[in-house]
C-alpha cells in the first residue's frame, strides 16, 4: 500500500475455510447445490468440463449411460460445516454408485469476500 495516499486500506480475510469440489454429470449440479445449501453452504460456483474416469472399467455396457460432459461445483465453506456439507453432497450426488462422479475437500489458507462491517467490528481483534 503506497504510504503517500495517507490512509492504509484494511483487507478483511477469512480463515478456517475449506473448498469442496464435486464433479458430477452435466445437469446434476442443481440437485447437489440444493443439498449443499440446506446443509449451510452460502453459495456455489459451477463450471462445465469434460472428462471420464472409472466408467469404462467398472460399468461395462452401462458405461454408455454416463456422460463425459461434466459439471464441476465449487463450494467454499466454513471448516466446521464442511464435513456435513460434504456428507450431504455425497448423498445427493449418489457418489456411492460408480460413474456418478467424485468430491474432494481441500483446506484453504485464506479467503476474501464481502464481510458485513458489524461482523468485522465484532470479530476482528
Amino acid at each position: 500500500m503506497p504510504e503517500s495516499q495517507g490512509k492504509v486500506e484494511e483487507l478483511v480475510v477469512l480463515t478456517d475455510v475449506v473448498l469442496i469440489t464435486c464433479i458430477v454429470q452435466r445437469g446434476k449440479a442443481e440437485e447437489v447445490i440444493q443439498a449443499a445449501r440446506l446443509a449451510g453452504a452460502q453459495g456455489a460456483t459451477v463450471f462445465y468440463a469434460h472428462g471420464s474416469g472409472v466408467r469404462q472399467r467398472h460399468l461395462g455396457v452401462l458405461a454408455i449411460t454416463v456422460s463425459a460432459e461434466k459439471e464441476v461445483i465449487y463450494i467454499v465453506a466454513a471448516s466446521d460445516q464442511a464435513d456435513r456439507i460434504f456428507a450431504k453432497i455425497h448423498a445427493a450426488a449418489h457418489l456411492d454408485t460408480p460413474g456418478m462422479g467424485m468430491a474432494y475437500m481441500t483446506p484453504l489458507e485464506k479467503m476474501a469476500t464481502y464481510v458485513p462491517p458489524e461482523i468485522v467490528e465484532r470479530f476482528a481483534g
Partner: protein
Amino acid sequence: MTRKIRYGDYLGRVRVQQRVISYNEVTAWDRKHRRRPRLRPRDIHRLVAPYLSSRFLDQFRAVIPVTLFLVSFQVLVLKSGVSDVAAIGLGIVGVMLGLMFFMEGLKHGLMPFSENIGHLMPGRTSYSAVLAVAFILGAAATFAEPAIGALKSVGSLTDPESAAWLSFLLNQRSEQVVVAVAVSVGLAVLVSMLRFMQGWAMKPVVLIVTLACLALTWYLASDPALAPIIGLAWDCGAITTGPVTVPIVLALGVGVSAAAGREDNPLAGFGIVTLASLFPPLAVMALGVYTAETADLGQFATPAAAAGPGDGGLWGGALNALRAIVPLAALLWLIQRVWLREPLRHANLIGYGILLCVLGMAAFNMGLDAGLSALGMQVGDLLSTAFSGDESLYPYWAGLGIALAFALLLGFGATIAEPALNALGMTVQNLTDGAFRKQTLIRAVALGVGIGTALGMAKVIFDLPLAWLLIPGYLLALVLTILSSEEYVNLAWDSAGVTTGPVTVPLVLAMGLGLGRAVDAHEGFGILAMASVGPIVSVLAVGLWLQVRARFLRFQFVRMMRNV
C-alpha cells in the same frame, strides 16, 4: 436461562461417520485384482433411469403436444371420436421410442464419422475429392432420412384418374423419385462446398436456383397432365432436410469452411440446408417431365392397390431401416478408414450407435404408419365435415374459417416447439449482436409456417393450382432477398429448412392427403411447400423492417444532433 453450545461442536456430534482408507492402498490393491465390482440394483437404476427418461422426454415434448392438439380438435371441434385409438396410441409410442433410439444412435454411431471427415478431409485430400465426398454423403444421408419413408407410403393415396402422372410416379417409380431426391441433395451439398471454398455469396446462388425452380414450375403448370407433380416436387424439398441430413451435412460444411480459411465467419455452415431444399423440387420436376416423355401410361391402367403403407410389417420395417442406415455407415467408415487413413476409435460405441439407429428407424417407420400418418389422415378426412357436404357441422364460411384457423395453429404450434429452431435462434441472436432477438426469430418463423400451412390447406380445399400460390410466394421472397443484406438472406432461407422436422412432416403430409381425398381434390400435396415459403418471406420481412428501423433511428439521431 439459555445454555450456549458452540454450533461447530454440535455439528461435530451429528456428522456422518467416516471410514478413512488410504488411496495408496486402494491403487496398490487395484493393480493386483483387476475385477469389475458388482453393481447393486439401485446402482443400475440410478445409471439407467436418467439416461432413458431424459432422452424419452425430449421426444415426448416434440410429439405429444401436437398429437394432443390434433386429438382435442377432432373431438371438440369436429365432434367425432378417434377411431383405432389403440393402434394410433401404440404407433405414437413407437414414434417416440423410435426417435429416441434413432437420435441417440445418430449421436454415437454416425456423428463421430462426419465430424472427423469434415475436419480431416480438406487437409488430406484434393479439392475435387472433397467435392466428390460431399456429393456422395449428401445423397447417402438422404436415403437414411426417416421421413423419406413417408413419401413411399402415401403413394397409394393419390387418385390415378385425375392426377395420372403423379400417381404413376409415386406407385411405379417411387424408387426413382427417391433416387432423384438423393442425387439432388448430393448436388446441393456439392454446390455448397464449392461455395464455401470459393467464398461465393449466398444471394446470387439462391436467385439463380430459385428462378430455375420457378421456371420449371411454370412449365409444368402449363400442362394440366403434369401440374399435379408440382406439389409433390416442392414437398420433397421439405422432406429431405431432416434429422440425418442436416447434422451430417452441417458437420461437413463447418469443417470445410474452416479449412477454407474462413474460420472467423460466423455464418459458416449456413446455406447448405437452403440448397438441399431447393434442388429436390428441381430434380423431381425434371424427373416428371422426363417420365412423361419416355414412359407409357397405358401399362399403368390398374394401380397396384396392394402396395399399401407399411409393406411387410415388423421385418419389412427392420429391413428397410437396415437398408437405409448400414450403407451410410459403411460409406462413412470407408471414407474415414481407407481414404483418410484415420483409425477408428471407440468401435464398440459406434457399433452400438448404428444398432440403435437401425432399431430406432424400424420402430419409427412402424409407428409412423400406424400412428402419426393414421391420425393425420383421420383429421384431414374429418376436417371437410366442418364445412362441406349435406351434414356439415358448421355454416360454410364458419367451417372454412375453423379449418384454416386450425391449419394456422397447427403450423404455428408445431414450429414453436421445434428444438432445432431454438438452436438457430440462439446462433442468430449472437450473430446480430442482439438486433434480431431469439424470440423474434422463433415467432417470425412460426407465423410464417402457420400462414403457409393455412394457405396450403386452402389450396387443397379449393383445389387451386399450387403454382398460383408458389410462384408469387417465391417471387416475393426473391424481391425481399434482393433488398436484404447477405446475413438475413442466409438466415431466412435456412430457417425454412429447419422447421420441418420428422414429426411435423408426416403429420401434415397425411393430413393434406386425407383432406384432399375427402374434398375430391386432385391431390393433397403442397401444404409443406407452402409451409416452407412462409418463413422465408416472414423472416426476410422482419429483417428488412429491423434494417429500416435502424436507418430511421439513425436519421432521427443525426437531425437531433444538428438541432442541438
